[in-house]
């Protein structure tokens, strides 16, 4: 009797299609629902079902290995296949789980941040975004990846723009995101076109096999690789291509920021892993040189540069956004070193960072909800005004810095050992330096919150006003996840190793 027996067979057999189709269909229904409460409830149910399904599929993957679901009964070389393997199963669980967290949080947050008329469409767009993200992770067809990438992106543009009722800069942020996101997606689809020219198939496993037989392929494959890296780099906010990210994170409604920071860039990073290590192969000479000279360089420069910029931000959400760019640098460093240990560390950091940054953004959103706070200088006395929210912010902040017994420490330590194991001692130095920079930018908020008195308004000190339970519960769920991974991260660390071994073979 294992945990897998709880789930019925049909769920395991048809789960991949559910993950993609259920949110899509419910998004369509939600779009015409008149009542936001019903819309909320249906989205909550869908995200919950998707989480259970993703969890069941991940367990099934651990026990029974890779499963392929031919959509419409057409077998892979001709039809679109949905594939569940060690690389995408944990990401699916992550996306669905973060969607549940965000939806719970959205119940009070949308009332504060979104116009009444737009609340039901908000949930519809949210489900659409989730369907796109799940679809692009679950599919095994390269062009289908593009379609779902755009489904999620287009939904995201509207979601970001919904922040306009709070701050009109959201409109410009959404516009910039749209321009850069579309350019990224178009670069990606050009790359897919060249790959199709080279291999004659769109199935990613088939592409991998043919490229392997061609020993890397001709110049067309190289060009394809370049386009795909740039396209995905735009989507995942690789350092010089990150210009859309701070605006989109700072001005969109809090649930959207949380969901974006913890899933959208992560799904793009997953695609990067998928293309570099699965479709292409780090043994090809051009892939290896891009990994070592481009990804590592950009990752490291991004880590240092974005951490510096985070220190000088006024807006707290912009600070966290720049910190996100820095954290993407860690993951790129892990990918670029390209040993099994480093890829596992990068993958682990991907999951951990989603949880940590989710918690931080939720805490900031709660502060805005109660006191309208967006600037770091407003943190004064926050520990007395909102002790639980500030507690969640503090623990997640420590986790971001990499204090022992938190999730951030586990992945940063693993990344540092992996870098040292590959002989990259200077990379260890960079990891330490950027962690110290993280102490500065998180620390300035914490110092104000704990060692300053709450501000006085008309002579009276601002009273304690804790966030509602619907905000505290998801926030602390993420905090607990972060601590549990830090104390005994067995399952997630195993998952990251399984993903890395799936990509690179046993090795070190």
């Amino acid at each position, binding site marked *: 009797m294992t945990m897998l027996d709880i789930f019925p067979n049909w769920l395991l057999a048809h789960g991949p299609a559910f993950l993609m189709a259920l949110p899509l269909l419910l998004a369509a229904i939600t779009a015409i629902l008149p009542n936001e409460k019903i819309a909320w409830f249906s989205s909550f149910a869908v995200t919950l079902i998707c989480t259970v399904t993703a969890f069941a599929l991940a367990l099934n993957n651990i026990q029974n290995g890779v499963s392929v679901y031919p959509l419409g009964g057409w077998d892979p070389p001709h039809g679109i296949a949905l594939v569940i393997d060690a690389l995408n199963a944990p990401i699916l669980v992550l996306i669905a789980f973060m969607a549940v967290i965000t939806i719970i949080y959205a119940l009070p947050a949308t009332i504060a941040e979104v116009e009444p008329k737009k609340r039901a469409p908000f949930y519809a767009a949210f489900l659409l975004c989730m369907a796109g993200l799940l679809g692009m992770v679950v599919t095994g067809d390269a062009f289908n990846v593009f379609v779902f990438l755009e489904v999620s992106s287009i939904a995201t543009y509207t979601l970001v723009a919904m922040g306009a009722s709070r701050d009109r800069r959201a409109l410009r942020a959404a516009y910039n995101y749209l*321009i850069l996101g579309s350019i990224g997606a178009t670069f990606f689809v050009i790359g897919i076109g060249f790959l199709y020219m080279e291999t004659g198939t769109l199935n990613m496993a088939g592409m991998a096999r043919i490229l392997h037989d061609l020993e890397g392929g001709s110049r067309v494959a190289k060009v394809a690789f370049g386009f795909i890296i740039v396209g995905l780099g735009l989507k995942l906010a690789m350092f010089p291509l990150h210009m859309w990210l701070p605006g989109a994170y700072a001005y969109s409604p809090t649930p959207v920021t949380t969901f974006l920071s913890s899933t959208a860039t992560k799904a793009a990073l997953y695609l990067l892993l998928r293309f570099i290590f699965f479709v292409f192969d780090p043994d090809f000479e051009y892939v290896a040189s891009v990994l070592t000279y481009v990804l590592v360089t950009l990752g490291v420069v991004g880590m240092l540069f974005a951490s510096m910029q985070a220190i000088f931000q006024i807006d707290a959400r912009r600070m966290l956004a720049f910190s996100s760019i820095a954290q993407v640098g860690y993951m790129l460093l892990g990918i670029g070193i390209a040993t099994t240990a480093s890829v596992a560390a990068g993958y682990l950091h991907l999951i951990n960072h989603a949880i940590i940054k989710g918690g931080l953004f939720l805490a900031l959103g709660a502060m805005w909800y109660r006191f309208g706070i967006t600037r770091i200088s407003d943190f004064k006395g926050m520990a007395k005004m909102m002790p639980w929210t500030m507690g969640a912010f503090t623990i997640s902040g420590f986790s971001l810095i990499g204090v022992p017994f938190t999730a951030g420490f586990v992945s940063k330590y693993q990344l540092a050992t992996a870098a040292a194991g590959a002989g990259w001692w200077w990379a260890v130095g960079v990891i330490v330096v950027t962690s110290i920079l993280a102490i500065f930018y998180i620390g300035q908020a914490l110092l104000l919150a704990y060692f300053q008195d709450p501000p006085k308004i008309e002579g009276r000190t601002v009273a304690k006003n804790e966030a509602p339970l619907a905000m505290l519960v998801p926030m602390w769920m993420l905090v607990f996840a972060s601590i549990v991974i830090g104390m005994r991260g067995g399952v997630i660390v195993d998952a990251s190793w399984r993903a890395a071994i799936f990509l690179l073979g046993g090795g070190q």
Partner: protein
Amino acid sequence: MSVFMMQSTTLFSQFNYIAVIILMMVGLYVVFASRNLIKKLVGLSVFQTSVFLLYITISKVSGGQPPILVEDHVSSDEALAAAATQAASIEAAHGGAHHVVYSNPLPHVLILTAIVVGVATLAIGLSLVVRIREAYGCIEEDRIEGFDFDYTLEGISK
């Protein structure tokens, strides 16, 4: 002379690709160089259209017919299999009884999807521009940045 001739013939035989590259560059340049929000979207559309052309170019098999099965005596099962597989053209050319070469239909289908995606992006982009104009009263990026400049610095002045 002969080298030039050869180069020019290869150049002309690949004029589709040249058109694609020119359109791509024009589109990208307009997106980055123009400061008007609508013009940027126009550039984006040109850029995306160049990709449609690229895919259509890939699908052309020289001497190929449109990929439509017209023979009635092909049983519908076979027709189904052949029409739906991307290898239809190759099968028909090499193994099929009629020796008809078909163009590859798959990229056309892909591009149909990509066109829809492009239309959706353009619609969202234009509606964002409408909203931006309602919020700021203009669609020139430099001016909008100017409006937001004081707003962004409010934290320092206090």
